[in-house]
């Protein structure tokens, strides 16, 4: 079971994290804002993308089949993995058959989701993350704290120290030098690794094209040098047509980094053809379900599968900005993680995720495909409570309290009477005394804030007496 509450204190006390979050998202305007405001028909693009996604999800089997056909035609292979474990097993088996000892990897959240690196390491295969942020995280033995900028929680100094300690780099505070070190080391891995594993941003059903967006050039190398390329994709990543890419790329890239275009967008159609100079001889596309079809089966929750992993909802989320990504304790963080974690697993596995939100709606406002995250979180809260209170014999205290509360709120007489009693209590105990009452509601509130003083008379009392007078 993942508990966010257990991680909050540590996150709040982590000064580097707090400084980095502030600098990145609070103190300076996000580049996204300008990139979006430049596009006059942004809302139209969003609607289009949302509709294309909704359409695709409603016909997912057809599109996946067409994708498979096209990939096969081009000489690639398609593997259907119902669970993360199945995907991992395929990769392990193939590596063994081909005698692969080292793998270069492009950034892939799905790979994190299915814990691929751990499995590779256990099988004595060395995974080398080649995205700079991921490389840093891997060296540190940590997990990404942001969807797009995985090492966001680390300062330049921490990264430099890490490089000195793990790679023997001469001490420096210069970002250029840190990068030169990484470049040199990774170049060696690129030129020797025999397998490249990447994620997928979009897969075009009509052409069998796998699209991977990046800035560094590491994906380009990972899919060009090694003999084997494995692309890992969630089944929800398929889109119908090439032309849709124009819209999705515009939305994704501007939302993610505020760029108009990333340095590279790799569109891949299977393995190298015999008359091409280079490229992988073998190309595998692994279609991973891992809980997605379960989400798909729920007509309302289905919307969450439209996500294009841009990270904009994290960037604007005041909760994410306050606790960072690690506190979520899950592969996906921020509003996306709050939504997706209990959906992919269960509300029992991630009981707090849906509640770790003030429902402010900033995520919905920026989401390029218009996912109503707050409404999904509300539904998840509902699911959590109803699963928790399925049996009448074991109703939670909170449920009983809510039932009682609803009775009071449906009865104006009870309601008015309770108000009077509360004011009496307040008179007896005083404002601070209320916080010492053994009621968690009060004590947790009063940990940080004062309670408002109860007025001597409620509005309704004042109103009825004024009516009597007049």
């Amino acid at each position, binding site marked *: 079971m993942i508990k966010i509450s257990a991680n909050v204190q540590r996150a709040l006390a982590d000064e580097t994290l707090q400084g*980095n979050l502030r600098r990145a998202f609070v103190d300076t305007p996000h580049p996204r804002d300008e990139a979006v405001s430049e596009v006059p*028909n942004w809302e139209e693009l969003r*609607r*289009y993308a949302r*509709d294309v996604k909704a*359409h695709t*999800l*409603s*016909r997912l*089997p057809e599109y*996946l089949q067409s994708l498979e056909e096209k990939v096969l035609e*081009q000489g690639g292979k398609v593997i*259907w993995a119902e669970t993360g474990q199945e995907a991992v097993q395929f990769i392990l088996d193939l590596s063994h058959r081909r005698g692969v000892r080292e793998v270069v990897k492009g950034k892939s959240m799905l790979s994190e989701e299915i814990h691929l690196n751990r499995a590779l390491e256990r099988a004595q295969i060395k995974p080398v993350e*080649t*995205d*700079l*942020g991921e490389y*840093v995280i891997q060296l540190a033995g940590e997990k990404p704290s942001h969807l797009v*900028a995985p*090492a966001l929680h680390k300062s*330049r100094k921490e*990264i430099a120290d890490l490089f000195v300690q793990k790679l023997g780099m001469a001490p420096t505070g210069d*970002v250029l030098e840190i*990068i030169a070190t990484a*470049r040199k080391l990774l170049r060696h891995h690129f030129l020797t690794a025999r397998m490249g594993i990447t994620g997928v941003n979009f897969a075009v059903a009509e052409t069998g*094209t796998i699209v991977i967006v990046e*800035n*560094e*050039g590491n994906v*380009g*190398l990972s*899919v*060009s040098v090694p003999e084997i390329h494995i692309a890992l994709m969630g089944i929800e990543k398929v889109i*119908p047509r090439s032309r849709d*890419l*124009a*819209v999705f*790329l*515009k939305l994704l890239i501007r939302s993610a*980094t505020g760029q*108009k*275009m990333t*340095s*590279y*967008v790799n569109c*891949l159609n*299977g393995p*190298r053809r015999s*008359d*091409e*100079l*280079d*490229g992988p001889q073998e190309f595998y596309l692994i279609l991973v*379900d891992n809980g997605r*079809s*379960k989400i*798909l*089966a729920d*007509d309302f929750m*289905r919307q969450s599968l439209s996500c294009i992993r841009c990270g904009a909802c994290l960037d604007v989320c005041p909760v994410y900005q306050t606790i960072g990504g690690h506190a979520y304790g899950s592969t996906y963080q921020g509003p996306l993680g709050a939504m997706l974690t209990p959906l992919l697993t269960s509300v029992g596995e991630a009981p707090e995720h849906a509640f770790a939100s003030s429902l402010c709606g900033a995520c919905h406002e920026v989401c390029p495909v218009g996912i109503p995250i707050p409404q999904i979180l509300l539904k998840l809260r509902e699911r959590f409570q109803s699963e928790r209170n399925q049996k009448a014999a074991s109703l939670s205290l909170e449920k009983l309290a809510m039932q009682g509360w609803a009775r009071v709120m449906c009865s104006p007489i009870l309601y008015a009477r309770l108000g009077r009693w509360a004011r009496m209590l307040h008179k007896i105990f005083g404002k601070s005394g209320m916080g010492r009452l053994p009621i968690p509601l009060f004590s947790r509130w009063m940990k940080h804030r004062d309670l408002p003083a109860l007025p001597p008379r409620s509005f309704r009392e004042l109103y009825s007496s004024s009516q009597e007078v007049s």
Partner: protein
Amino acid sequence: MLHKIRHACAGGSSVELPAEMPEFPHYSDPVEKFRQELERVGGVFLDGRRSEELAGALGLVLKESDSTEIYWEGEELFQRHGISFTLRDPEAFAKGSLLYSFHFRHRVQFPIVLNSKPAERSDLARISLSASGARFGVAETGTVVHEVKAGRGRLLSLLPPAHLVFLSERDLLMNQAMLFLSMPPGQGSALTLVTGPSRTSDIERTLVVGVHGPEKLFVILTS
């Protein structure tokens, strides 16, 4: 598994594909827009539309990338962009060796004299400047599109620290929508949209140019 997905899909509401694509921008001067966008992301734009300018542009690229030789990608590049050349090894094309290095001592002069030399992967890692032709350019974003097909590869444009792209004016498209609408459905195995040099912001969100791909990107526009 497909069965499971089909089952999951069955209950849901069906939604139609939107009928119309949203508008993408058009420009009265696409070349100028392309130049602006390319320069904004740190690329270098050179106008080689008049043949007298071409030699100068090439000279500049060599100087800026601190190189004395260029590795060219295929014969088509010369034909397509009207670059006059002669082969030192007249049978080179026929022999199927596909990369040509060309040495400069002084100024660039036409016809360019090419030395044929099939490059190995280990050569690629040492090359300081490579040149390829773009299939398309996109004014909206300053993008050039590199197409992998028969006789061409992926690495020549990725491994060297500097890369030069020839873009013909007639291949310059207005916007991304036009690009994806006019893209030939996969003949080759890869198509890369390149927009400026390689970059990262992974350390404290500071933008640094030149990580794994080229640090310098030049585009020469030809007519």
